[in-house]
């Protein structure tokens, strides 16, 4: 009974993760996108901690704690600083407009569920539902990177993809070995720093963080 109830709560946590993805797709304000990403990471950490509690695998706790520190506290702070310095608040022009983007993401979620359907009976009882959701989050993060033009939101798309991968690893294998997790977190953090500098350079060179401007380099 406890494990059944636990599985429902894990499912709910994964569902909330997916929900925040859609909120990011629908949100135009950059700082709100960052906040939503932080919220998504909180849900991710809570879900991971719950899985750790229910399975008794301790190293997932460490990964959850690292998620809180890096993705909820450090990265949003860096991104907020970048947004503040760049003086951009809203994304007004997108490659795909919001309602179309939402519909495409709904299609991507269906695709992800359809693909993972045959794998579901093979997985752990506890995290059966999460695998499809994890794949959906990865696809939506990827779509966000394509649909948005500003460097900051593209970074958020990348981070959302990373969250999806983390959820997928937790769902399919109860987490990766700790050394791999540490490596991934370090990579994400360094990647963030590089992107911060990249966005500053972009701003200095073109007076905008619109990445579509980069094509003008050819001339």
């Amino acid at each position, binding site marked *: 009974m406890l494990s059944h109830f636990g599985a*429902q709560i894990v*499912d*709910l946590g994964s*569902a909330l993760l*997916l*929900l925040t993805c*859609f*909120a990011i797709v*629908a949100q135009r304000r950059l700082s709100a996108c960052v906040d939503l990403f932080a919220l998504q990471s909180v849900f991710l950490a809570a879900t991971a901690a719950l899985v750790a509690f229910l399975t008794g695998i301790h190293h997932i706790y460490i990964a959850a704690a690292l998620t809180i520190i890096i993705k909820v506290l450090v990265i949003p702070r860096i991104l907020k600083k970048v947004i503040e310095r760049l003086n951009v608040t809203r994304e007004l022009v997108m490659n795909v407009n*919001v*309602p179309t983007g*939402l*519909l495409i*993401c*709904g299609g991507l*979620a*269906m695709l992800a*569920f359809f693909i993972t359907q045959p794998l*579901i*009976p093979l997985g752990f009882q506890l995290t*059966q*539902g999460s695998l*499809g*959701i994890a794949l959906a989050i990865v696809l939506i993060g990827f779509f966000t990177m394509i649909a948005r033009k500003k460097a900051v939101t593209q970074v958020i798309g990348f981070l959302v993809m990373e969250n999806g991968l983390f959820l997928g690893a937790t769902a399919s294998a109860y987490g990766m070995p700790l050394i791999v997790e540490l490596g991934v977190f370090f990579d994400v953090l360094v990647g963030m720093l590089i992107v911060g500098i990249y966005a500053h350079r972009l701003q200095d060179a073109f007076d905008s963080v619109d990445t579509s401007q980069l094509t003008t380099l050819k001339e």
Partner: protein
Amino acid sequence: MSQAVLLVVAQTMVLLALSPFIVGLIRKVKARLQCRRGASVFQPYADLAKLFKKQPVVSTTTSWIFTATPYILFASTLAAGLLVPVFVSQTPLNFAGNIIALVYLLALGTFFLMLAGLDAGSAFGGMGSSREAIVASLTEPAAILSIFAIALTTGSTNLSTIVHKTALLQGIDTAPSPHLMALAALFIVTIAETGRVPVDNPATHLELTMIHEAMILEYSGRYLALVEWASGIRLLVFLTLIVNVFAPWGIATTLTPVAFGVGLGVYILKVAGMAVLIGVIESMFAKLRLFRVTDLLGVAFILALLGVLFFYILRG
């Protein structure tokens, strides 16, 4: 048989009597949050009484649609209200239709209201109708899908069965996620369909922003009273749908006087709570630009779609 008739009469009375109070309560909450004292919560009753006494003025360019619409709107909305369990889990018109009939009865009223807006030939009426058509066509798929998400988890499209099963916690073994998504979607649909703040502002007659008010601009006297009352009932029906489908506990599941009394009391408390929530939301958010409304309704549609998807994916 006599019991069924009694139930129809009782539920009609409750819907008719309670709807102006809910409208008044929302206004009062908004006024208090803006540091005004505001009119009494019973003001809408006085407004309706005054309007019924006044002589209606009807433009000479209008056809029969204009005068028939208030009656059609009022009747269809009330009929829709009788398909929803209000304070007893059994609905009076149980035999007549399910949740899909409910959505389309409400849509019938909206359709005639749009025609009436066009009928008078004024620029504002046409503009209001066109905007209402955008909103209505986008809320309908979201409403239907969110309702399907709930119907799937309880295995029936009959509202009475859904509410009865949930109230007695029978057959509710599925994950909570579909319910949550459907709740969020239905809440956005409620706000859009009843013309509350992020979508439409019921308290303004500003040309650029109004939707519902623009359509009924030509109405006066008893016609206006009927339209206003119908929109009050519509709001109450949506709030009832939300509280009774997602939190039906306390509703009368047996046909005894004690259960009736408790059911009615709990129902009024729950609906009043929802009205306060809507008042708070109206005070917190600014009205969306018309072209941003599609974003919000897109979110509602996706939420409802996810509700249906989660039912299938999390079933195992």
